[in-house]
Structure formats: C-alpha cells, structure tokens
C-alpha cells in the first residue's frame, strides 16, 4: 500500500494543470467559474482545443483517439479540468454515445460518427427518458417500426438536455412491443434534422433552458443507424450508464466551488468582519470539505480498483460516488447563497445587450439560480433513490 502519488503521476498532473490553464481561453473558464451561461460556441471551442491534443476522448479505445492512461491519470485529468473551470467535453458525445459506438457499432458507424463526435462537429443529445418512463426507464414506449431499410419512429422523449443544440440524438426505442420490457428495446441514432422531429423547450425553476421535450412523428430513420443488434439496446444503455464512473462525483468541480466560496466570503463583510472569519460559517464550510475529502479518497479507491475489473462491469461503489457527490454539490450551492445573503433576491437573468452593472456582489446573480438548478443533480442520471436501490441490490445483496 502506497498512498502517495508517484513522481510520474505528479508530473502528469502538472502538465494537465498547465495545459488547462493556458490553452483554454480564460473568457470561457471565467464563465464556468461564475456560473454564467455557456454558449454552444463556447462548448465547441473548448472541446476542439482538447481534441487537438487528443484530450477530448481519453476514455475511448486508443485506435479511436483514446489515451493509454492509468486510472490515476484519468482521475487527475478530470480533477484538474474541473478545478481549472474548463467546460467538460460534451458528455453525450464523449462518455455516452462515443463508447457505445466504439464498443458495439460497426466499422462504418465508427468511421462516420466517432471523429465528428470527438471534435464536436456533431453535437449529440440523449433520448432516454419519457413522460411515463423516468426511474422505470425500461417501460419506455417510443416505437420504432421496421419498414424495409428504415425504421419509422413515433413517440416522445423528455428532459432532453441541450436538444436545442443537437445535431444528432441517440435514442432508446421499442422495436418489439411483445417482448419483456427490457428485451424489446433498441439503440438508434437519429439525425435531428429529420422531418417529423419537434423540439419544445422546458424552462426550469432557475429560469434556464437546458432541457426539452422531443417529439417524433413518423420520423423515418435509415436502418443502418441501428447500433449493434435489434432488441439489445438495453444492454448498451446499461454499458453507457456504467461508463460514467469516476467523473460522476465531480470532486474537482466541488473543489473549485469551495475555492470560490472562500474567495468571495473573504470579500463579503458582515458588520466589521469578513464572512470567512465567522466561526459558524467556516465550520459549515469545513464540514463539507471533510465530506469532499472523504469522497475524493473513496473515488481514488474506486479508480484503483477499476484496473482489476472487467470492461463494462463498473464498480457498484460508483453509485456511492454519485450519492455523496451530488449532495455535496448541492450543499455548496447553499453555502454560495449564504455568501451572497439578501442579494440572492434580485432576479437578474442574463440578457443580451445588457449594459447596466449587476446588482449586489459578484456572483450574486448566479447564486440563487444555481441553487435552484442544482436540485437536478440528485434526480438525473438515476435519482439518488434509484442509486440506493442499485447499491442495496448490487452491493448489499438485499
């Protein structure tokens, strides 16, 4: 047992730190730091810089642009990226559809889709949830009927994040209504420009537009866009969800938020003293720091264990990472609100051409909406209750 990093690992970390902090434009990183809205162009620009270095797709097979990194290096890459406020490369491209195509797609699909996904030439979104199929995802009803060389898709997806930016959507569709619910599902790639697709925004409680409803009305999809075998989509979906492992805790992002809270709490005064010198506030923050350090160590344990696991068989402990990681992220948004205090109240949505100075302290405008918005993190990707179900079954054997 050696609980310290090696010289090589430290050198890699320094290299990553330097790269993220010098190559990704400060303008974009500042937006992430302050919780400002990122444009589609920002996201794409940042990903292309990463991709030029081969760092957009480290988790992919090496022949498709992956990196032969050790789990510790992958961890450091994510940690440094998040701490430097670099926008994560589009998750739908990199951790979701990319690995599925690389693993289960045919050569033509790999050649066609992978390089474009890596470079954000295609912006992907995910068509999984439906109005009647949230936690019980396998009950989904969007239908794909085979007609000759095509599928005809009818149905509705919901909570489709950034569908308004997307060029493509990867969908779970029902291809065999007679089969048991997990066994009649296929994994289909659909061009968002296909006639019959309608995207309708859902405004969330923070006032933002991240998620959408996507309607499919007799949408004709070439059969060649089926990934793997028909009716095996559920297996691919499980593979996909299992792939999102170590980044899920977002430890680096929480570290960055703590640094920012400290920085702002040192400027914000209550009476004659900076907020950061208030013992109660400091202890509340320290309490979260302890949880986060414990989570970081847990994550490293999961990372170290990954070497010994079969591909696509994630450590069920990664559910613990999501459980704790989300609660910590949410708690930090509460503390950020506390920093701002009553100046959390003015509602200041980002508007184009807005020239008036912001009301209240720095980051006041984002504190409330971020708190509201982050309630989502314990809901998406399998709610924390579902994560507990998974742990109860997979780890505890209950």
């Amino acid at each position, binding site marked *: *047992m*050696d*609980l*310290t*990093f*090696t010289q090589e*690992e430290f050198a890699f970390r320094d290299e990553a730190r330097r790269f993220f902090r010098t190559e990704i434009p400060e303008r974009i990183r500042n937006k992430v730091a302050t919780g400002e809205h990122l444009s589609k162009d920002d996201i794409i620009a940042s990903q292309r810089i990463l991709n030029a270095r081969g760092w957009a797709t480290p988790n992919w097979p090496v022949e498709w642009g992956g990196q032969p990194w050790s789990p*510790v290096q992958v961890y450091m890459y994510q940690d440094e990226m998040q701490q430097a406020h670099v926008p994560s490369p589009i998750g739908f491209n990199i951790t979701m559809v990319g690995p599925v195509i690389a693993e289960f797609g045919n050569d033509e699909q790999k050649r066609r889709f992978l390089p474009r996904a890596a470079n954000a030439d295609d912006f992907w979104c995910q068509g999984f949830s439906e109005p009647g199929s949230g936690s019980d995802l396998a009950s989904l009803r969007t239908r794909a009927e085979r007609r000759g060389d095509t599928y005809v898709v009818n149905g509705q997806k919901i909570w489709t994040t950034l569908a308004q930016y997307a060029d493509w959507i990867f969908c779970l569709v029902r291809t065999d209504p007679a089969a048991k619910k997990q066994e009649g599902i296929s994994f289909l790639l659909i061009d968002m420009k296909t006639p019959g697709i309608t995207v309708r925004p859902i405004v969330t409680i923070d006032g933002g537009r991240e998620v959408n409803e996507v309607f499919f009305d007799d949408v004709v999809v070439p059969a060649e866009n089926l990934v793997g075998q028909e009716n095996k989509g559920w297996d691919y979906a499980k593979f996909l969800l299992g792939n999102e492992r170590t980044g899920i805790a977002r430890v680096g992002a929480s*570290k960055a938020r*703590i*640094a920012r809270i*400290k920085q702002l709490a040192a400027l914000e005064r209550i009476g004659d003293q900076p907020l950061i010198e208030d*013992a109660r506030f*400091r*202890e509340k*923050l*320290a*309490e979260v*720091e*302890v*949880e*986060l*350090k*414990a*989570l*970081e*160590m*847990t994550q*490293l*344990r999961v990372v*170290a*264990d990954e070497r010994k696991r079969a591909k696509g068989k994630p450590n069920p*402990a990664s559910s*613990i990472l999501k*459980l*704790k990681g989300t609660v910590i992220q949410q708690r930090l948004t509460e503390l950020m609100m506390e920093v701002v205090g009553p100046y959390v109240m003015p509602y200041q949505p980002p508007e184009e051409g807005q020239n008036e100075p912001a009301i209240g302290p720095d980051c006041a405008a984002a504190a409330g909406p971020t708190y509201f918005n982050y309630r989502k993190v314990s809901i998406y990707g399998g709610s924390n*209750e579902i994560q*507990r*179900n998974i*742990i*109860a079954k997979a*780890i*505890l*054997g*209950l």
Partner: protein
Amino acid sequence: MDFDLTDEQRLLKDSVDRLIADRYGFEQRKKYLAEPDGWSRDAWAQYAELGLLGLPFAEEHGGFGGSTVETMIVMEAFGRGLILEPYFATVVLGGGLIRRAASPAQQAELLPRIAQGQVKLAFAHLERHSRWNLADVAATARQDGATWVLDGAKGVVLHGDCADRLLVTARVAGARQDRDGVGLFLIDAVAPGVTRRGYPTQDGLRAAEIEFAGAGGAVPLGEPGQALSAIELVVDEAIAALCAEAVGVMAAMQEITLDYLKTRQQFGRPIGQFQALQHRAVDLLTAVEQARSMALFATMMSGHSDPTERRRAISAAKVQIGRSGRHVGQEAIQLHGGIGMTMEYKVGHYFKRMTMIDQMFGDADHHLGTLARLGGLF
C-alpha cells in the same frame, strides 16, 4: 497511489484477522472481561509472540519497523474484535511517545521490553479543565537532584490502572495554557506519591484517575518543558490509529446489521426486503466507506512533516469518524430493534466503543473547529 497491501502486509492482516476470529469471539471476550485485569494476559502474551507489541518499533529495538499502514491494519482488526488489552495505550501512545520523545538510551531500555510484553505504559495527560487542549497542563514538575517531582491530578488515563510506567505531562514553566513549558515525564506507576483509582469505561475497557502528590523519581523525556511538539505528533498518529480501529468497529456493525436485515422475518419476509430499510442500509454502508476513506487519509498524513498539514488532515479524519460513527452506531441499534438494546447481543458493544472513540483526543465538533480555524482542507 496504490491501495493494495504488500505481501507482507497481507500476511500481517491475515494473521491478525485469524487471531481475532480464533481468540476474540463474543463469548470469549466476555470471559476476558471477567478476568482480574479486565483483559486477557494470555492474549497479551500472544500479541507479543506475534510481534504485534513491537510492530512500529525499529528492528534494533526488537520491533518490525512497521509503518502507519501496519498499525492501521492491526487497529482495524482490533476494532472488529473489540479487544480489551492495553495495546493502544502501551504500543501506540506509550511506544509512540518513547519513540518520538525519549533519548536513544531510554528507547533502548524500554522499547524491547514493551515488544516482549514485559512493560505496559499509560499516557497520563487529561486534566478536568483541559478537555482536548494538549497545551493546557496544570500539573507541575520540579527538579530534585537528578530526577523530578510531580504534583497534580490526571483523569481518564487509558489503562492507567494496569500500567507499569506512566508517561505524564507536567508543566515546568509558564502559565497553564502556554505551549512552552510542557514537559513529558516517565515515572514508575507504583512510585511513592502516586495514587491510582482504576475503573471500567463504558465500552468495557479500563482507565484510571491518578494523583501525583510530591511523586519523586520521574525522568524527563527530551528537553524538559519542550515536549509539546512531540506529544502532538504522537497524538496525531494515535488519532489515525483510532480512526482505523473505528473503521473496524463500524464495518462490524454494518455487516452484523446487514446480516440481521437478511434473516429477521416480519410480515412474512426478511425485513431487508422493505425499501425504507434498504435505503437506510445503503446510507450505513456509505457512512462506513467515507470513514474508511478518511482513515486511509489519516494514515497517509499522520507522519507528514508539516505539522499544520498534518493537523488539518487528522482533524478532518476525526470529524468524519465521529459523524459516521454516530450515524452507523445509532442506525445499527435502530435497525435491530429490541435485540440491539440488549447486553447479550454484540452490536451494542460496538456502539458503545464507537461512542467512546469520539470522546478520545477531541470529538467531531472539537476537530471541526480546529479544521475551520486552520482554513479547511482545500
């Protein structure tokens, strides 16, 4: 970064785990509790035989030169076994103080005898008013020829009743809470002027109230009056060891409780089939895993050369252990229902040990305050 044990560490773990499984069943432990010392001299002899009593000492002192990782392995197993012997007091605390503060001659005299199980030590430090402030020492030491004379009262001295020698903090100069002027003295536990009142603690271990009234013949470890830094280092290492013990205690509670959920039938099925209980079982596991992570962190950082970095890490770990320990202990009792409340069932004994660990060298709130004052971890 590598969480795997080396072959030697694996061997150590296997042998300690086997020792606990063979020797420290719940019924066996009850017998040890009833022995005159409140623990087992046989077990103690066996620890010596296995080399556990010299584990952290250098080979020249009859030890194995084990690192903090080796101590962690042993303490976790001892936590599972809820062992009663004065291992923590003698080897971790006492041996640590000798290693960190004593002269080479003193080390050469004492460490081999500790390793052989011939000398037991206790750290007489706490005073009624001091709580967990290591610098708050009212007991005094004054020089009298070649040795020193101690006056003052020390409380809740772990295994102070059975110790052969006492390691006593006493002030040689300065005001009551000054960092300067704290000395560390070694004195025979039966020296004239030393009065001991031994008693059991809530968790079945032993402690003593000890008074020093003109107790002579004490010898200083290191420069008299400059002992605090070494004491702090040893206490931090001891806290790391306690964290490991606590992980053993918590893991045992978690496993026993899970087993109970799978076997206890109500409403015609195992109660573990109820989702409300499943989710609580998951939260229990999460609390244990978070604690385990912080025990590893404490182990990694307990020898850190920068005392402030070390302090931050150790305090953070103690916070996590305190929080997780309380949660796991209370839930373990609750999920068992009535049987968890009984003296004849083991889970309550783990709960009590866990509760006492929180009180040792600073509870969770104390360490949270320390960590906050030091600016946190990140």
